[in-house]
């Protein structure tokens, strides 16, 4: 045995130590502006709230499959925090973001949420994208009585007192889309979705609606998340020749699906599609040629014509670059931060109960138009919009609901939806 090996090992070890010292040393210069500047929180929970800052958590996937969508949402939240800080902060204190990476892994979301609430003692967390990550965080926020602002449209059937939902619930996106289809005389529907909870639940609702309104569901197919082999499903769709495909696919699968559909010679005049998870960001990945003329359903487009939106888009592009686009979840995240700040100002404290109470009925002129926080389910009223993808990859509105729609997460106002919800909203109702 020569002595070279241990020495080499030792050197490597030193190298490693130096590396981690560098990694951990970074937090000494505690810049409050953006990421990285975060307290190491040396294992003790008892960091007394700093005199002039309020800590807020930001928890999105900055790595892994979901980062492609979630990084932009995290950017929008930082933009809103910056705006609030420039305007003097909240209760006279600056907001200090504590950023964590959910890493596209649901257990990590739960763990980081717990860490933010206990170790960092943040006043609120803005976070999540997938329903799975929200479901993973929900017990943590309920158990520790924290506050989560969740910015993405979702499948409804939930109303936690510890979550504010600033994205659309089903009666603000999917049901208006179905109404629009009926109005346009599209009666034969084909359902295509990713195989997880959101598309499954959405399709359950669509089928109940179809039965009531005389739509024919010609077929229903699911692809695993991340699947890119879409030829079989597209062939089935082409054979069935529906008027419209109701598309609840998520992520990369959309790219393969629309490419395949275009490759098979389909145009929107033959088989139209209406998507609920394809926004401005995704259009770029799919390729404008493949999706131009197809429909999408949201509550906000980059082109939405309000003075607030003009400012928001300009500010977003100024901070992050001209090539960046805004989209519904990005806007909803931005709105969430502002709503929370307004509720805290109103309550005069960051205490969860007080903020929850103060948020009831809160109105805000958002980029998407006026929104109001519900007085019992912590969703917000939103104007539903249908748009068509144009040649520049942006979305032109072709229809909107005219006024904000009251959120109805458990679909209690619809006779045909009886039995879909199993009392998920009862607790929230009682509390109100």
């Amino acid at each position, binding site marked *: 045995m020569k002595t070279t090996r241990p020495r080499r090992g030792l050197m490597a070890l030193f190298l490693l130590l130096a590396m981690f010292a560098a990694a951990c040393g970074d937090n000494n210069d505690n810049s409050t502006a953006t990421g990285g500047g975060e307290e190491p929180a040396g294992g003790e*929970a008892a960091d007394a709230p700093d005199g002039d800052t309020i800590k807020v958590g930001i928890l999105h996937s900055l790595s892994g499959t979901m980062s492609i969508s979630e990084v932009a949402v995290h950017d929008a939240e930082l933009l809103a925090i910056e705006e609030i800080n420039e305007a003097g902060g909240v209760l006279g204190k600056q907001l200090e973001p504590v950023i964590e990476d959910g*890493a596209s892994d*649901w*257990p990590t979301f739960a763990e980081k949420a717990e860490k933010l609430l206990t170790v960092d003692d943040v006043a609120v967390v803005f976070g999540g994208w997938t329903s*799975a990550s929200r479901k*993973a965080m929900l*017990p943590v926020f309920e158990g520790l009585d924290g506050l989560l602002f969740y910015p993405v449209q979702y499948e409804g059937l939930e109303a936690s007192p510890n979550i504010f939902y600033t994205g659309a619930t089903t009666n603000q996106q999917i049901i208006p889309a179905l109404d629009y289809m009926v109005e346009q005389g599209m009666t034969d529907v084909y359902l295509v979705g990713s195989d997880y*909870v959101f598309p*499954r639940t959405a399709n359950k609702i669509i089928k109940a609606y179809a039965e009531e309104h005389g739509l024919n569901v010609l077929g229903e197919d699911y692809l695993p998340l991340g699947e890119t082999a879409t030829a079989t499903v597209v062939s089935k769709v082409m054979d069935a020749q529906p008027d419209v495909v109701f598309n609840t696919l998520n992520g990369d699968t959309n790219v393969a699906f629309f490419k395949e559909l275009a490759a098979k010679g389909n145009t929107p005049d033959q088989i139209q599609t209406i998507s609920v998870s394809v926004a401005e960001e995704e259009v770029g990945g799919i390729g404008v040629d493949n999706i131009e003329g197809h429909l999408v359903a949201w509550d906000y487009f980059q082109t939405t014509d309000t003075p607030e939106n003009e400012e928001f888009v300009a500010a977003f592009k100024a901070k992050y670059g001209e090539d960046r686009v805004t989209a519904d979840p990005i806007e909803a995240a931005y709105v969430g931060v502002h709503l929370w700040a307004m509720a805290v100002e109103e309550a005069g404290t960051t205490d969860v109960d007080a903020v929850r109470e103060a948020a009831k009925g809160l109105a805000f002129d958002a980029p998407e138009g006026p929104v109001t926080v519900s007085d019992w389910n912590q969703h917000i009223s939103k104007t539903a919009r249908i748009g068509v993808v144009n040649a520049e990859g942006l979305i032109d509105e072709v229809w909107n609901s005219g006024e904000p729609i009251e959120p109805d997460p458990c679909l209690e106002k619809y006779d045909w939806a009886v039995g879909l919800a199993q009392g998920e909203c009862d607790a929230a109702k009682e509390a109100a």
Partner: protein
Amino acid sequence: MTAPTTSSGDIDAGIPPESPAARDARWGRPRTPMSLLGPRGASPWVGRLVFVAAVVLLFAGPELIADPTRLRQWAEYLCYAMIAVGVDLAWGYGGMLVLGQGVFFGLGAYAMGMHLSLEQTGPGQLPQFMSLYSDYSELPLLWRPFEHLWFAAAAAVVVPVLVAAALGWLVFRRRIRGPYFAILTQATALVFWLLLVGQLQLTAGTNGLTNFSEIFGRSKYEPGTNEFLYYLAAGGLLVVVVLASQLVRSRYGRLLIATRDGEDRVRFLGYDPAVTKTVAFAVAAGMAGLAGALVAPIIGIVAPNQFAVLPSIIMIVWVAVGGRGTIIGALLGALAVSYLKTRVSETRPDDWQYFQGLLFVVVIAYVPGGLVGVARGSWLRGRRLLGSRGQRGDVSPPRPTRGTTEVTA
């Protein structure tokens, strides 16, 4: 397993039925499980002391870590250490590169997760996800026995052991080994993940089982629960470590090492390597299953992503970083890597993964013996510098694991 001999060549001829004298000549003084913890060549008392100190430290965790969240994280790391010890048994001592331990970890976690899901609902009621997303009107047959904690706990260990034993027996009897075995285990992890995601109505799909606010009759977020879970994990780890060190030291352990270093020779001597390897593989699976059962209440969610291909590879990394072929190394590797992952991802949320990747590359390339290898090297050199009178020309032959981190092993 294709004879991953060291650079020094042929030290591994015909080990099994060795006389005690010959064995001592080759390996130095027989090592008790405790002395395995100490540096090689040290008095067995050093090992015993280290062991006792480690156990005291382990159970003093709640005294040392005041923050309940941090304590819960440490409980989680302890579970990972259990998996690592199992991986080390199979890979470090048995030469089987297991790239699919996530399967057994997942089986254990789902067994306990199903029980915890049922604990949240009243008797005879469906778990929340099932009433929302499935067509079941009553509890499916597969779920029913998991209403009982004893059944869930037993299944968490027994099912992985049986699955591994069946898989191992089929594979090893056909003399499938080396990279083929590694690829096969990895494929198993992929299949397992697809199955969990695809059976949405039974498993809740990608969402996984969640919302465990009641754990073994206590609230997850009441003070003391994290402490309770920590002690459970610490106890589990102690059992796993003692079992593994007994096994490694036993006659079976020597046979396992011999099989790793020269499977054909062992076969010529009349042993059946398939049995030897199957046992190690099954025991490793049982350890992963136990870890899964404990991690489910600790993390509070059981989701397919935790058991996919990538986490299974990280399990190998734990052992490689700590030091393959030493139980203490596997254990420390899992603790160190998990702790660093948490800490670095907190301080650098944007780019922590690069640091983690760099760590793995550096260790594999420059520190093949892992943390333990470095410690052992320094110990030996320290002794030499002090002019110590080593019992037998000092340097014992390196364990055949050194310098053989290639995939073929």
